[in-house]
């Protein structure tokens, strides 16, 4: 282990700004340039500001906050989908996101093809998918429908398959965005059991959810975001309590 040994994610003074662009044509951009760049072509919006955060390997962190507080943005910065405008983000080991499960699904392909495609998108090798294929299908409870095109799946089946692929990718760091509300109650219990199992195996979990009771059972540490800034970082029940108090005060 290196000196910083056990750190899985470090964010240092991260800032992320979004440009809300109104125009999408070359003509308007040219007109704007010709006019000497007068006026603002776009509106800016600060999604994250001065966010510093350190997550150790094996920690289970719940990221909480109201809508628009920047939770998903932070998750996307950690997964590498977005790049920060200021500050740095560093991760250790393979990071995989259960971000909006099924993003890599193609409706016209069979479940089997989608397992391979989505597995590869999430960073698995051909051999890993071959080895885990049966386990993925079994966990998803899709059974004989695996060779049916996914457009014929019920939304529950769809999510179960996607979730099943994602938990089998075996990364060091798991990013989980609002997907614990998958399927019916028995499957949800199964998912939570699986996530706890991952955490017992020493995986780092980083969870975003509005289901406060649920995150409190899965995670140990809570981080509260408000308007793009971290306002609280501590034991998960304390943070849940704080968020509830703030919501009531609004």
């Amino acid at each position: 282990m290196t000196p910083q040994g056990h750190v899985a994610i470090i964010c240092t003074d991260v800032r992320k700004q979004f440009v809300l662009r109104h125009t999408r044509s070359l003509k308007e951009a040219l007109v704007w340039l010709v006019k000497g760049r007068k006026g603002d072509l776009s509106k800016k919006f600060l999604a994250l500001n001065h966010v510093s955060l350190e997550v150790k390997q094996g920690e289970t962190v719940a990221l909480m906050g109201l809508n628009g507080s920047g939770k998903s943005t932070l998750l996307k910065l950690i997964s590498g989908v977005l790049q920060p405008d200021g500050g740095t983000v560093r991760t250790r080991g393979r990071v995989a996101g259960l971000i909006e499960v099924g993003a890599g699904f193609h409706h016209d392909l069979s479940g089997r093809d989608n397992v391979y495609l989505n597995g590869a998108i999430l960073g698995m090798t051909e051999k890993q998918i071959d080895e885990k294929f049966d386990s993925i299908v079994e966990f998803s409870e899709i059974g004989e429908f695996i060779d049916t095109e996914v457009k014929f799946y019920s939304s529950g089946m769809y999510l179960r398959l996607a979730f099943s692929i994602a938990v089998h990718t075996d990364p060091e760091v798991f990013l989980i965005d609002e997907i614990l509300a998958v399927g019916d109650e028995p499957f949800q219990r199964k998912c939570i059991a699986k996530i706890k199992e991952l955490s017992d195996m020493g995986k780092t979990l980083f969870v975003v959810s509005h289901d406060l009771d649920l995150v409190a059972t899965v995670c140990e540490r809570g981080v509260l975001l408000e308007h793009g800034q971290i306002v609280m970082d501590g034991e998960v029940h304390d943070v849940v309590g704080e968020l509830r108090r703030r919501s009531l005060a609004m």
Partner: protein
Amino acid sequence: MAGQTDQLIKPGSGHGLLDVYGDRFLLKLLVRKEIKVRYRGSVLGLLWSYVKPLVQFLIYFVALGIFLNLQRGTPNYAIYLFSGIVLVNFFTESLSNATRSIVDNRDLIRKIYLPRELFPVATVWVSAAHFLPQLVVLVGACLVVGWAPTLLQLAAVVLIFFMVAVLGTGLGLLFGAMNVYFRDSENIVDMIVMVVTWASPVLYLWTMVQKVMGDWFWIYQLNPMTVAVEVFHWAFWEPTLKPDQLVNDATPPGMLTLWLPIAMLITLAVLFVGQLTFRRLAVHFAQEL
């Protein structure tokens, strides 16, 4: 894995096209998906990639070969025409699909980090999968009329295939990345596609251009697609000519020694510029889409 786990890395940073090589398995799956999905629900399926160029060929052959009587001055005009058409189709299909590839895959790009170069590269492979069967048809037609190429000519065909693939990738990266910011990019590419069939000697002979352009003919030759089509003529059409049909100037002087190296340099430069632009713009793809 152990080697990777003991250092901190910056998420979402890659090595451009080199990462695509590392992700060959995913590339293969993306190409296969694209081919499967392209003709889904159609009766003819992949046969469409034969039918379309065939119809295109017939139109040109009837209009130009017969009505304008180009086939009289050009022996085996059908071969001449078809060898140019398949190559230009490969290029235009690569380019226009690669340009749309980033915007078409926006759902994925917005949510999961992947080397984004995968998408344009995959579309070029898909075009290659459509091009190769057409090439087989071309070779079949050539054999019927007595094609006897030299090894050098066969090697040139392979080289040109890669050159056009690289050119399509380079321009596809450039316009695909620009398309995220300005959807005008698609229209510019549509225009290029329209021009390119006529800006290379696909339908007519290069000598006709030289007559008109005179000393400025070298400008025409700077277009890598022009050289690519000329090399294809040299490899497919010329070896089918009988001794009494020989055309003295089937290819421009210095084609292999001067123009081909220049075309390859231009192609590499295009790839370089395309990759550079793509990498600079790719940083903000997820938020701009």
